[in-house]
């Protein structure tokens, strides 16, 4: 038996697909390439096997995702995770929130920020810089028109430079993408 979870958590659930993942032994060479399957790496998640149904998008999306979240320079990695969580909380993607909240906690070595966000959602009160980042990511996620010049001014006042602003926009927008896959194509479950 497994139970679908509806509350935010940093315990990463299992993702149970609502559509058929491709079967590895029937995968085309293009799919195997996009999945980065090699004789020594045959473990592929159900999520990626579901996305392999649209292999052309998958093979360009994976490097894009990694570049936005892990490229050098610009906004720090923990702050990109905070931006990802801002989007995922608004879109109520339990799975994405769990993965990126736990990464934030590891990188920032602090659990208080996520405790506040889980307790108060979009109204969570954080220090000036984190607040500006979280609020902007949440508003841009809710509807692009919700994010305004006032939010940009708050980010500037909190010390964000142009390259950091761009990374914030990219990471928040990226989770508009990721949430619409994870939250719609499957359920976050825990197995008894």
């Amino acid at each position, binding site marked *: 038996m497994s139970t679908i979870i509806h509350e935010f958590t940093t315990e990463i659930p299992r993702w149970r697909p*609502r*559509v*058929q993942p491709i079967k590895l032994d029937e995968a085309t060479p293009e799919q195997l390439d996009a999945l980065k399957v090699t004789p020594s790496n045959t473990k592929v998640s159900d999520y990626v096997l*579901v*996305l392999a*149904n*649209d292999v*052309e*998008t998958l*093979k*360009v*999306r994976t*490097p*894009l995702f990694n*570049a*936005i979240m892990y*490229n050098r*320079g*610009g906004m720090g990695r923990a702050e990109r995770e905070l931006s990802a969580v801002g989007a995922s909380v*608004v*879109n*109520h*993607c339990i799975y994405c929130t769990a993965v990126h909240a736990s990464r934030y906690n590891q990188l920032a070595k602090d659990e208080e920020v996520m405790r506040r966000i889980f307790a108060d959602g979009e109204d969570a009160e954080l220090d000036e810089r984190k607040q500006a980042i979280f609020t902007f990511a949440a508003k*841009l*996620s809710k*509807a*692009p*028109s919700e*994010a*305004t*010049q006032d*939010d*940009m*001014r708050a980010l*500037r006042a909190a010390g964000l430079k*142009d*390259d950091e*602003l*761009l*990374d*914030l*926009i*990219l990471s*928040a*927008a*990226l989770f*508009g*993408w*990721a*949430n*619409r*896959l994870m*939250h*719609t*194509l499957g*359920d976050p479950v825990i197995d008894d």
Partner: protein
Amino acid sequence: MNELSPNDVVITQADAAESGPVRDALEGRADIMAMTQATHDAALKPADPGGLSHGERAALAARIARLNADEGLAAHYATLLEEAGADEAVSAMADPAYKGGGDTRRAALIAYTDLVSVYPRETAAADIEALKTAGVSDADIVRLSELNAFLAYQIRVIAGLKLMKAMA
């Protein structure tokens, strides 16, 4: 090192090509902008479109842009729609007021798109089941989701860059 392409849809839409602080920041992330353009091409004009034609993709993209009040981007997708040579029923999907005209499959594609583009948190298992019931294959459900997901990303990058530019 990648350079910014003069044909980049996001940069063109945000009117961010001219020299200045926004372009400087974009040049520092030229690799990401190039990959963003590559995902646009993969979601809108894949070599193998499966059961979701280039015309349907362009029409739904224009619809999503309009649902997000981005008329400039909607015009870009209207051009792609014309290039795809789609028939009238497909072109009609670009108008948010059109709900499928009694065609079960088109109505299901539209209902899913209208929900996921604006209220993604409300999406439930029943919405995926509705697509299956309307005869949309599992692979096409993934293609439709990727199209919607890509548009959500693209629209937000454009909106963010416009804000940056207004402040520069």
